[in-house]
């Protein structure tokens, strides 16, 4: 029985592989394991929408290497196991490049499957340095800057640009992203000469910040700047809790702050003096191509994009297309080489990957945004001179 089922399995996979090979002749298939449901959906659905806009744009302009692009996304359901299985299914369907979810914990299973099938895998915006060729393999990349850049940009901005000398740091223990972002901020802030007066811990979903506040109050002094690394709606909870009891120091954070609902929730009263480091700015002044993208997006979806994460999806597809063009094929090794060698002008900043030995470190600038009266404004692009070691 065992034997027959195995034979059957082999036969089906062979059949699938041959259909895949057939399909590959007239089109290029890009597989997406992005999560349309669950906690990762707020970050993945915008990327998915942006990717669709890019695919349509490329196909309307003659495709890549004369072939049309087909983007198949199967819901990864914000579950690492499902994301891995989805990637296997996509590869069976003939996917030649895999687009992985926007986070190391949720995205890496897709990249691991891509790597073992010899394909390039790119996460739309995973920023933990674990998303590297060191841990995932020589054909794996992330479009995002690493947390080293994100944390260092925040630290340099606070200490060097603004002259804030003492910091209070809150770290959500939720995922690798929230933990490493704080770690690199603290490293860089101390290296710059700043002092961290208190580091505290928060548990995602608690929606209760009173114990942390009590510890901060017990310290008896106020920090110059507050760094909060959290995820999802909890960020707004923490900021409100701090502001309500009179901590009016500037608050700094990462790309998880890039959420219009959070800005609205803070509103005119609490949405001031909040700065965050993110991928790009959707308005004027960030990138000359942005207007074109927003126009195309509106054409497709009938409304303005509601978060800047849509541009990570567009960038991922456009960069894959550019790399395939440079490589002249969709062969995994050739595309990976093209990504390593290439320089990419993207909506989310210019990107130049390090070599395989350097972990495919994404050398990239970061966008700095300030909240004023609950409304985001663009401060500018920043690129730290030195980075903490990943």
């Amino acid at each position, binding site marked *: 029985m065992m034997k027959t089922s195995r034979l059957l399995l082999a036969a089906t996979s062979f059949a699938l592989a041959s259909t895949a090979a057939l399909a590959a002749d007239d089109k290029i298939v890009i597989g997406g394991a992005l999560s349309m449901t669950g*906690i990762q*959906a707020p970050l993945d*659905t*915008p990327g998915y929408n942006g990717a669709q806009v890019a695919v349509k744009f490329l196909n309307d302009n003659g495709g890549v290497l004369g072939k049309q692009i087909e983007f198949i996304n199967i819901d990864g359901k914000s579950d690492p196991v499902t994301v891995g299985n989805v990637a296997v299914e996509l590869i069976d369907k003939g996917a030649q490049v895999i687009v992985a979810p926007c986070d190391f914990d949720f995205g890496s299973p897709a990249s691991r499957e891509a790597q073992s099938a010899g394909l390039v895998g790119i996460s739309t915006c995973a920023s933990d340095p674990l998303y590297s060729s060191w841990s995932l393999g020589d054909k794996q990349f992330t479009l995002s800057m690493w947390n080293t850049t994100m944390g260092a940009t925040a630290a340099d901005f606070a200490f060097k640009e603004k002259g804030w000398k003492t910091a209070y740091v809150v770290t959500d223990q939720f995922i690798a992203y929230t933990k490493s972002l704080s770690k690199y901020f603290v490293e860089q802030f101390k290296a710059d000469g700043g002092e961290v007066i208190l580091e505290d811990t928060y548990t995602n979903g608690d*929606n*209760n910040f*009173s114990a942390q506040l009590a510890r901060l109050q017990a310290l008896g002094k106020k920090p110059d700047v507050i760094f909060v690394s959290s995820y999802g709606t909890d960020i707004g909870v923490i900021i409100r809790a701090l502001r309500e009891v009179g901590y009016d120091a500037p608050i700094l954070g990462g790309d998880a702050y890039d959420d219009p609902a959070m800005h609205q*929730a803070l509103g005119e009263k609490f949405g001031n003096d909040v700065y965050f480091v993110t991928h790009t700015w959707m308005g004027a002044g960030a990138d000359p191509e942005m207007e074109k993208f927003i126009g195309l997006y509106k054409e497709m979806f009938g409304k303005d994009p509601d978060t800047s994460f849509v541009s990570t999806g567009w960038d991922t597809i456009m960069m894959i297309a550019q790399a395939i063009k440079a490589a002249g094929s969709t062969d995994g090794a050739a595309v990976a080489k093209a990504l390593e060698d290439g320089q990419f002008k993207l909506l989310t900043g210019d990107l130049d990957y390090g070599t395989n030995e350097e972990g495919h470190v994404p050398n990239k600038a970061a966008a700095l945004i300030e909240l004023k009266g609950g409304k985001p404004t663009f401060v500018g692009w920043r690129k730290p001179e030195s980075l903490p070691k990943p």
Partner: protein
Amino acid sequence: MAFAIQFTIDVLSLGGAYALMALGLVIVYGILRLVNFAYGELIMVAGYTMFLASGSGLPWIIMALLAVVMAIVFGILTDYVAFRPVRAKSVTAVLITSFAFSNLLQNAALLFISPRPRNVPLPEIFSQTVTIGGAITPVRNLITIAASIVLLAAVAFLMRKTTLGIAMRAAATNFTMARMLGVPANLIISSAFALSGFLAGVVGILWIGRIGTVVPGVGLEPLLVAFIATVIGGMRSLPGAVVGGFLLALIDTTLNYTLSQDLLKFRDAFTFSLVILILLWRPQGLIKGPASGQRT
């Protein structure tokens, strides 16, 4: 002194919210012996009602009332959609239908509204603070405490003094006997779901008042909290659910205040270890409910 006041207010406000969540879950469990896994979605419904009503220009209190009414409506709907058709057949079926209904509601919110957080209107008072004995406290914590005292008292009154409440308690003790004595089964069960929806609606407003936004998964945490609280307190006892809620809040808050930074990362592990210890000591939960009759 300020610390003691701060600590007490924290425990009471968190515990009040937890107790209401647990009470809403246990009211249905007591009668049906079935956990309503779609309970968290009632909180979500309350949140999204507030979001959808926010453009209407209604006064906040009307929006809040509307949210509670919608939670009650969806509570009763849970009974009609997920429980009543399969109630008499098998526990497994009800387990699955209640999961399915929860999934359906979550995905409906995802599809028709957005997977991204949506803003919920909050009155000014929800973000004001007062100083009590040197402790700066958000007013919404005091509102939570007041609301939980009033509601717990109201539920206690309903359960002890009114015909409906006595009938519900009778049904929870021995459903078959209660039916034989003329207690209408469907009415009692629907009332339990309505009451459960009412508590979910109020707790939803208080809970989302802390967060400020609503997402499709907002009900997961309250459901988990309610479930653990009822397990500690005793799955079949209404006072048990309340005690369980306050105890869970006390454990969480104490750990939050006392654990060192290195250990705080593992707070949930400590919480659940304590829960296991409590269950080893009292497998039935802290307060034993009425002798278990046959499931109906």
